[in-house]
């Protein structure tokens, strides 16, 4: 007879996570943003690139629910479409960093020795650069635009992932069950992919969501500097940048995208914290 009180790790995780209101809020924000990004063409009242110079700097209300920018473009529509750039850069860059970080971190941690030293020192070089400088350097080399921005942010994030994965691999490698896996004849490849990876994936997931928040900020910063998404594609960073000149006369142009950035970053952070709280204690109990 199956014991009802004992549940699978997945059920325990959801149970714990759903009890954390902030985490659920963060999750809701992220899901909400995802929906907005996917359904942008249905949700946006207007074409975000449609200029209407007679309406420039219009205050919120009436035809423009959140007002218009200096070219008369609807801010609400631009905010909605801007979600795409933010989420795209935020998630794809982290996916790149995660993949490369996993390769480097696992190789480093598992094999150790010279390989470990070499990889870590190269990553140290990357880490030595202030993030903006690194991103600017990459973008100067390969040009601006949303794809290249994604790559730049991805490169920046690699050392962080590589380090925590390496640390996890080193710890897990010593576990009894890894020796047990060798004792049944598992090869190194099998041990890495089937036994070590599933055991470090939890902190990496947490790290990913927190890094996504940062990635979005960096994208905004790069676009602000003109190095990221190029006009007329809407990007929150771009909107803040061009709104700078009108902070006194039409503050809504710069402020509203700033709030959008803030809510997005908050959402990812809350989600990441919630994931960490729900995933970590269970691992400790084992």
């Amino acid at each position, binding site marked *: *007879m*199956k*014991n009802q009180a*004992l549940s*699978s*790790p997945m059920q325990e995780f959801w149970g714990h996570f759903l009890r954390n209101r902030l985490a659920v809020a963060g999750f809701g924000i992220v899901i909400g943003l995802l929906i907005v990004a996917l359904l942008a063409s249905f949700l946006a009242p207007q074409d975000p690139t449609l200029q209407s110079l007679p309406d420039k700097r219009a205050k919120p209300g009436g035809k423009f629910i959140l007002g218009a920018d200096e070219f008369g473009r609807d801010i609400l529509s631009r905010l909605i479409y801007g979600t795409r750039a933010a989420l795209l850069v935020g998630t794809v860059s982290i996916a790149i960093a995660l993949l490369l970080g996993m390769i480097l971190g696992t190789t480093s941690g598992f094999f150790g020795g010279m390989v470990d030293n070499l990889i870590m020192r190269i990553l140290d070089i990357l880490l030595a650069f202030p993030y903006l400088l690194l991103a600017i350097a990459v973008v100067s080399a390969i040009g601006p635009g949303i794809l290249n921005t994604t790559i730049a942010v991805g490169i920046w994030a690699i050392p962080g992932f590589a380090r925590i994965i390496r640390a996890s691999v080193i710890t897990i490698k010593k*576990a*009894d*069950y890894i*020796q*047990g*896996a*060798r*004792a*049944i*004849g*598992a*090869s190194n490849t*099998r041990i890495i992919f*089937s*036994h070590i990876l*599933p*055991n470090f994936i939890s902190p990496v997931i947490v790290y990913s969501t927190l890094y996504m928040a940062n990635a979005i900020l960096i994208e905004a910063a790069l676009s602000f500097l003109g190095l990221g998404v190029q006009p007329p594609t809407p990007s929150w960073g771009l909107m803040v940048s061009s709104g700078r000149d009108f902070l006194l006369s039409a503050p809504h142009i710069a402020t509203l995208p700033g709030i959008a950035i803030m809510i997005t970053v908050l959402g990812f952070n809350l989600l990441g914290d919630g994931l960490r709280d729900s995933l970590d204690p269970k*691992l400790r*109990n*084992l």
Partner: protein
Amino acid sequence: MANPLLEIQGLKTFFFTRKGIVKAVDGVDLSLNEGETLGLVGESGCGKSMTALSIMRLVPEPIGRIVEGSINFEGRDIVKMTESEMRKIRGNRISMVFQEPMTSLNPVFKVGFQIAEAIQLHQEVPAKGAWERSIEMLRLVGIPSPESRVNEYPHQMSGGMRQRVMIAMALSCRPKLMIADEPTTALDVTIQAQILDLINRLKEKVGSSILLITHNLGVVAEVAQYVGVMYAGHIVEYSDVIRLFKNPKHPYTVGLFQSIPKKRGSGQRERLQVIPGLVPDLLELPMGCKFQDRCSQVFKKCKNEPPPFVEIEPGHQVRCWLYE
């Protein structure tokens, strides 16, 4: 007499540390025939686990290495095998059960998956077939309701159950030799008895030979037919279990038996007997016999020359100058 299943000759496994060379296994000879159970007894640090790991070629490298000797298994020398040849043997022809059931299983996989993995690594069996075999193995090791327990995670099981799962994994490919490294040390006494009984019964059923490593003489008495007593990297006495218990010869073995707390009889309570002193630091071994500092019968020759391992009667070997 057929060739022995396992024959170890002159095995030396050393660790090359910054502080010096640690001679964990310093010249071990032993042999095991098919269907037999050999118990390897000794204190912590005497080299018995390292002997087992050497057989499995799982000695942590590069700090440790088998430097000398041969380990003949089914006619082939394990020491000379390549890593990929070794992988075909591990879990398949020779398997191992470890001491700590609480940490020996991967926490993120169901137990059925882990047993099935052992099967699929060595046999061409589809996933479903391997899963069915897992359930059968769980049934074999005496886990009730195996069909539902096969879906459980290690943290949902007790220590005794996890150890049964380990045994199921170890026997899943019907190995010729199963090495059990202190399989019951981490379990409480009633479960210990069950596990030992299980090992005994399964030996018959599966047709494996067993190398049982333990520091507990009681466990040896239950399970083993032959016993090797190890001290500081050497085997100091080897005999069949009955003769060893009746008539131990080496002063260390004698000391071990004397230090077992005895049942309180009607007479007065006796002081616990101990072997005075400590195991020697493996980095600074004395010249001559390694037991000299603790031996009640030590004399001059012991301090100068290490005694050879000699047969004092058929099937009974001792490493001591008292018997030359």
